[in-house]
């Protein structure tokens, strides 16, 4: 392979003959050549050095007209005006491979007149571009991105996403301040406690107190602001929440400490103020961090629907915005394209992949007069069809709307810690108040009574309670991730532990999803290379199954002289003067070949010169461990149900094989979702496991949607848990991890409650000195964190 050279732009390797030669440089296509020259002219050629000659996608040359980006409707939908009056748009840039690509795009855009800011996020390829609309138009910006070999399309940066990012950033800032101040307060506190035992002069103590007080102020009022806000909303809705406890506790302690500092006797508790706020803030942040962003999911789905279709008007084909297509328009679809509207075929015929809607992997043949459904893909059909519905009312659009509403309607089981904290907070505040009243009644000074009352709140520090859930779930998430089980949101671990019903999709979930040869019948010796070449030429799943089976024999592919694929039947070919037939029984009957063979499985006949030489039986095999999984779940008391788009016979066979008693067949995506909804009505907590586009509605509807990692992109996006290795063992592990984690969450909560049950009576009796309060607070938090770490060991022993 010495005559292969790599393209100077994209670095893909091709043989020398096909390359465009230009001095020392070779180019695989005009596009690459163009980009290469452009970068050199613009002085951006250091891109190649920076990208370390990484392989790129060659630039596409046929783009839809960029002037559509300048239309009023586009501006209304996507372009915002920022506070300076400049225009701003959010784009997703396609073709970004490395950080040098980001560099190149930003550089090229910055060089343009009128572009004020171009900021591209490498991780999700999302870009924000700000420009002065009177100097440069958006279409020119898009043209620039395209001319350097990338593509861009707009997306609606929804408020949800912006909001989520803002919230996260606000937490970073608040935490940075809180941690900085707490760390400083801690080393001042060391001096204080040293002085408490060995004695120190009053004015040194006052200085230390003042320093602590100054540091604690931003912690309470800046970092702790979210607690005040939370408490306020809690009171408004008449709920005593954890925020109220933290806010009142911290504020009272703060005020009291200021009083002590001014009176110059007694102990100030500034360190407790900042510690409580910091710890609880960290706990809250962990929760925010692991929240799934529903907005991202919807972006990806939107991205998968092209915005334009080709329509035939006055005998010319023109592009038209999807929303502008009217009922009665003639739409043109070529092979490999997606059908985006519902309609009736007026010209042409061919096969369609309807697996998105039905889950059936078998392609369906359609001719003039048949109806096509939006959301399906043309495999080899070049057709024209008359739209019978506009896009708003099409099947595809309905599916997207349904999906959006299911994602938003997803049931949320309230987390145990949240429920608990309500009671806990009420109890502590009441205890503290009672303690204060009792001490004051039975004559003590106001000051002493107040201090004892506060010590109850301080010692009942909700740190441990606030950390109990997030720390345990984080460890659980890590454990899952190391086994290829990705939980997208921490709270799902707890939800999953409460599951009582498991709904499984058949194809791709219980079964492998691809037919495999289980029996081979050879009737006459033949050259297997003929068969191998024949099945290699088709992309039908059955043919694929046979080529996989033959692959082990190390056969060479030979060139077929003639090859025709007959939809739903098989293929006919000639080679070396032999007439080859490969397909099902119907194909043989059509070609007058007689055969007598009966089987429950899918059967592939191979015929050479009208003589059957071999028969292959294929079946979609059940995955390893399916039976064990169903059995072990049964023992755990989880009801297992199978849903499939296949017909009754296949469903029955698979269900019998793995031991599932409840199964439903002939399911459409909508009926699967309805089925789950019905389970919800019965108050069941449902997990749905699936892999395809036909499962997404059900996945979104279920309490937890689990997706096989090899499933379609959209399904992976919609699911809550992803099993990277597709195995059913991972599914069992996911259940185990969630239950172990939930067990630990409960244990953590018991620990922090038990801790309080001991220390609070002590505090009420007035036995707690400041040092003990501070230490006990840290110890309880450490206990909870340490206990969570136990998950790993617990798991190993299982």
């Amino acid at each position: 392979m010495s005559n292969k050279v790599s393209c100077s732009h994209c670095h893909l390797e091709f043989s020398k003959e096909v390359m465009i030669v230009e001095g020392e440089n070779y180019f695989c296509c005009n596009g690459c050549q163009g980009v290469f020259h452009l970068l050199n002219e613009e002085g951006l050629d250091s891109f190649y050095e920076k990208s370390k000659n990484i392989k790129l996608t060659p630039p596409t040359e046929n783009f839809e007209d960029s002037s559509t980006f300048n239309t009023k409707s586009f501006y209304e939908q996507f372009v915002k005006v920022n506070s300076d009056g400049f225009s701003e748009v959010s784009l997703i840039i396609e073709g970004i491979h490395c950080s040098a690509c980001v560099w190149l795009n930003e550089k090229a855009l910055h060089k343009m007149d009128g572009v004020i800011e171009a900021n591209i996020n490498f991780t999700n390829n999302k870009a924000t571009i700000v420009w002065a609309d009177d100097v440069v138009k958006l279409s020119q910006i898009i043209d620039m991105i395209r001319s350097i070999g990338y593509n861009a399309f707009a997306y609606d940066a929804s408020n949800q996403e912006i909001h989520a990012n803002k919230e996260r950033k606000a937490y970073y800032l608040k935490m940075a301040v809180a941690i900085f101040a707490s760390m400083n307060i801690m080393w001042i506190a060391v001096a204080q406690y040293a002085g408490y035992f060995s004695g120190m002069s009053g004015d040194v103590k006052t200085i230390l107190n003042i320093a602590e007080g100054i540091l604690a102020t931003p912690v309470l009022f800046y970092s702790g602001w979210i607690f005040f806000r939370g408490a306020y909303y809690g009171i408004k809705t008449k709920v005593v929440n954890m925020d109220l406890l933290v806010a009142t506790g911290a504020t009272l302690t703060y005020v009291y400490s200021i009083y002590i500092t001014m009176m110059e006797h007694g102990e100030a508790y500034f360190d407790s103020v900042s510690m409580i706020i910091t710890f609880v803030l960290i706990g809250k942040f962990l929760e925010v961090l692991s929240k799934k962003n529903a907005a991202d999911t919807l972006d990806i789905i939107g991205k998968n629907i092209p915005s334009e279709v080709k329509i035939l008007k006055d005998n010319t084909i023109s592009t038209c915005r999807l929303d502008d297509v009217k009922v009665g328009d003639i739409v043109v679809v070529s092979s490999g394209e997606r059908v985006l509207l519902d309609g009736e075929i007026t010209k042409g015929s061919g096969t369609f992949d309807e697996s998105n809607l039905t889950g059936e992997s078998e392609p369906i043949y359609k001719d003039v007069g048949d109806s096509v459904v939006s959301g399906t893909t043309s495999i080899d059909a070049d057709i024209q069809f008359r739209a019978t519905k506009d896009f708003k009312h099409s099947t595809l659009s309905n599916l997207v709307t349904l999906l959006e509403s299911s994602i938003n309607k997803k049931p949320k089981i309230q987390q145990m810690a949240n429920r608990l904290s309500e009671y806990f907070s009420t109890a502590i505040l009441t205890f503290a108040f009672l303690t204060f009243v009792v001490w004051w009644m039975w004559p003590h000074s106001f000051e002493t009574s107040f201090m004892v009352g506060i010590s109850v709140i301080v010692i009942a520090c909700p740190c441990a309670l606030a950390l109990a859930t997030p720390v345990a779930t984080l460890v659980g998430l890590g454990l899952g991730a190391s086994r290829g089980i990705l939980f997208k949101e921490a709270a799902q671990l707890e939800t999953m532990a409460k599951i009582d019903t498991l709904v499984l999709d058949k194809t791709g979930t219980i079964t492998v999803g691809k037919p495999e040869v289980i029996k081979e019948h050879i009737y006459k010796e033949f050259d297997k290379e003929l068969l191998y070449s024949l099945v290699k030429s088709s992309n039908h799943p059955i043919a694929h199954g046979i080529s996989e089976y033959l692959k082990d024999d190390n056969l060479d592919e030979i060139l077929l002289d003639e090859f025709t694929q007959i939809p739903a039947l098989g293929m006919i070919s000639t080679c070396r003067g032999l007439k080859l037939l490969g397909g099902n029984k119907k194909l043989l009957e059509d070609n007058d070949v007689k055969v007598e063979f009966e089987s429950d499985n899918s059967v592939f006949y191979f015929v050479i010169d009208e003589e059957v030489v071999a028969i292959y039986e294929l079946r979609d095999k059940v995955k390893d461990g399916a039976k064990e999984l169903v059995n072990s779940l049964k023992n755990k008391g989880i009801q297992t149900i199978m849903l499939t788009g296949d017909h009754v016979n296949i469903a029955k066979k698979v269900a019998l094989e793995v031991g599932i008693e409840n199964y439903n067949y002939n399911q459409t995506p909508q009926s699967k979702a309805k089925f789950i909804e019905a389970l919800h009505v019965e108050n069941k907590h449902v997990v749905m496991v699936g892999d395809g586009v036909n499962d997404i509605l059900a996945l979104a509807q279920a309490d937890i949607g689990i997706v096989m990692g090899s499933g379609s992109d959209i399904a992976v996006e919609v699911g809550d848990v992803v099993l990277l290795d597709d195995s059913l063992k991972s599914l069992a592990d996911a259940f185990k991890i969630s239950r172990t984690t939930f067990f630990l969450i409960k244990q953590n909560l018991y620990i922090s409650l038990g801790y309080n049950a001991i220390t609070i009576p002590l505090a009420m009796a007035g036995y707690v000195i400041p040092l003990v309060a501070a230490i006990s607070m840290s110890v309880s938090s450490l206990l909870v964190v340490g206990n969570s770490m136990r998950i790993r060991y617990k798991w190993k022993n299982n």
Partner: protein
Amino acid sequence: MDSWVIGMMLGVSVFLGAIALVGFLWAVKNGQFDDEQKFLSATKFDGEDELNDAVNQERKKEELKKNYKPE
């Protein structure tokens, strides 16, 4: 030891720390940590040119701001 020494030392050290904190807060607000990948590889693409570009970009923005008349 006079107590003002303690006070001064506390003040100075906390002040120095606060400067670093303010720098960090500025960087977070400025979006420098928004994209961890980009942030990590930023050092690779840093140099005199980049600095000049950044300054020019700022100037361009000011210039445009002055002349910009939104319809």
